[in-house]
C-alpha cells in the first residue's frame, strides 16, 4: 500500500476511536506510552553505534524511560531505524514493522534512513525508509549524536502526548 495513504488512515482510525469516556483514559495511556517507549533495535550501520551510546551511561536514555531495547518486535512499540536501509533489507524492515503490536511509531535516525544520505544515487539504495513504513520523526545527522536521538525521542513523546496539537500543526484549524 502507498505509505502516505497508510499513515493518513492510521491517524484517521485513531481519531475515530475517540469518544468522551475514552479521551480521558487515552490521555493517561498516552502519558504512559510517551514516558516508556520500548524501542526495537534496527541497527543497520554506524548510526547503531550512536544508538548504543545513547543507551550507555554518558547520555543515559533510561532517564527518560526508553532504555528497554527489545530484540523482538513483538515486545516493542517504537522502531528506531538506525542506518542505511538497502533495497535488499527493505522487505525485512517492513516485516519487522508489521510484527509490532499497535500502537507503533517509527523513528528514522540519520540521513540514510531519512532520505538515502550519501548513497541516494546508488544502485542498491532506497531513498529513505519512509517509502516502506510510515515515519513519525526524522533525525538529521550523519550519524546524529546521541543527544539528537534523545531529542528525537522527546519529540515523539510530545507527539504521542498531544495528538490534537500535532493535528493542528499539520492540518491547521
Amino acid at each position, binding site marked *: 500500500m502507498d505509505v502516505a495513504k497508510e499513515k493518513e488512515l492510521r491517524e484517521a482510525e485513531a481519531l475515530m476511536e475517540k469518544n468522551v469516556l475514552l479521551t480521558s483514559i487515552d490521555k493517561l495511556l498516552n502519558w504512559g506510552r510517551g514516558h516508556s517507549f520500548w524501542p526495537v533495535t534496527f541497527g543497520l550501520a554506524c548510526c547503531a553505534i550512536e544508538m548504543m551510546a545513547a543507551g550507555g551511561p554518558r547520555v543515559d536514555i533510561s532517564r527518560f524511560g526508553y532504555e528497554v531495547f527489545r530484540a523482538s518486535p513483538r515486545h516493542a512499540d517504537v522502531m528506531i531505524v538506525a542506518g542505511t536501509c538497502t533495497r*535488499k533489507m527493505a522487505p525485512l524492515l517492513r516485516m519487522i514493522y508489521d510484527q509490532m503490536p499497535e500502537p507503533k511509531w517509527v523513528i528514522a535516525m540519520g540521513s540514510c534512513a531519512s532520505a538515502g544520505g550519501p548513497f*541516494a544515487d546508488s544502485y*542498491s*539504495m*532506497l*531513498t529513505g525508509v519512509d*517509502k516502506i513504513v510510515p515515519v513519525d520523526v526524522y533525525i538529521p545527522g550523519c550519524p546524529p549524536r546521541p543527544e539528537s536521538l534523545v531529542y528525537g525521542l522527546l519529540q515523539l513523546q510530545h507527539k504521542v502526548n498531544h495528538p490534537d496539537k500535532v493535528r493542528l500543526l499539520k492540518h491547521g484549524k
Partner: protein
Amino acid sequence: MGNNDVLRKRVDELAARVNGKVEEMIDTLVLTVQGAYITETLTAAKNFADVPCDFLHDIAGVDKVTHIEVVYQMTSLRGPQKLRVKAIVDREKPVIDSVTRIWAGANFMEREAYDMFGIQFTGHPNLKRIYMWDDFEGFPLRKDYVTEPVEVRNTMRVRRDDE
C-alpha cells in the same frame, strides 16, 4: 640476497613461463597475465621456493572498458613478500578458471566478483550472487551499468518464498 630480490627472481622466471609482464608499483610486484594461464600462475606462486605467496588476500574485478581485469592480491603469513597478479579477460565473455581448488577461501571473493562484474569462474562450486538478490538484473560495477531510476528503486521488492 634479500627477500625482495629472491621474489623478483622467482616472479621473473614465472613470467617467462606464462608469457606475462612484470612491473613494480609502490613496492609491490605486479604480474600481468592472460586469463587462460591463471591456474598455472597462482599454483606456481603459491609454491615459490623460499618466498611462497601462499595467502590469498582478495580477489577484485576492474572494468577497463576494453577488457576486464581480475586482480589477485597475495602475501604470506611467514614473510614480508607481496605479489599482485592481474589476469586479463574478455569484456563481452569474461570467463576465467576458479581458484577455489587452490584456496578454498576464494569461494566468496569470486562470488563477489561475479556479482559486481559478471565474471564467470569455471569450476566454482556455488557461483551465484552474494550481495545483490538473485533476480537482480545487470552487474552494477560495470562501466556501462545504468542505475535504475529512483521511482523503481523506491518500490519494495517482494521476497521469494525460498529466500
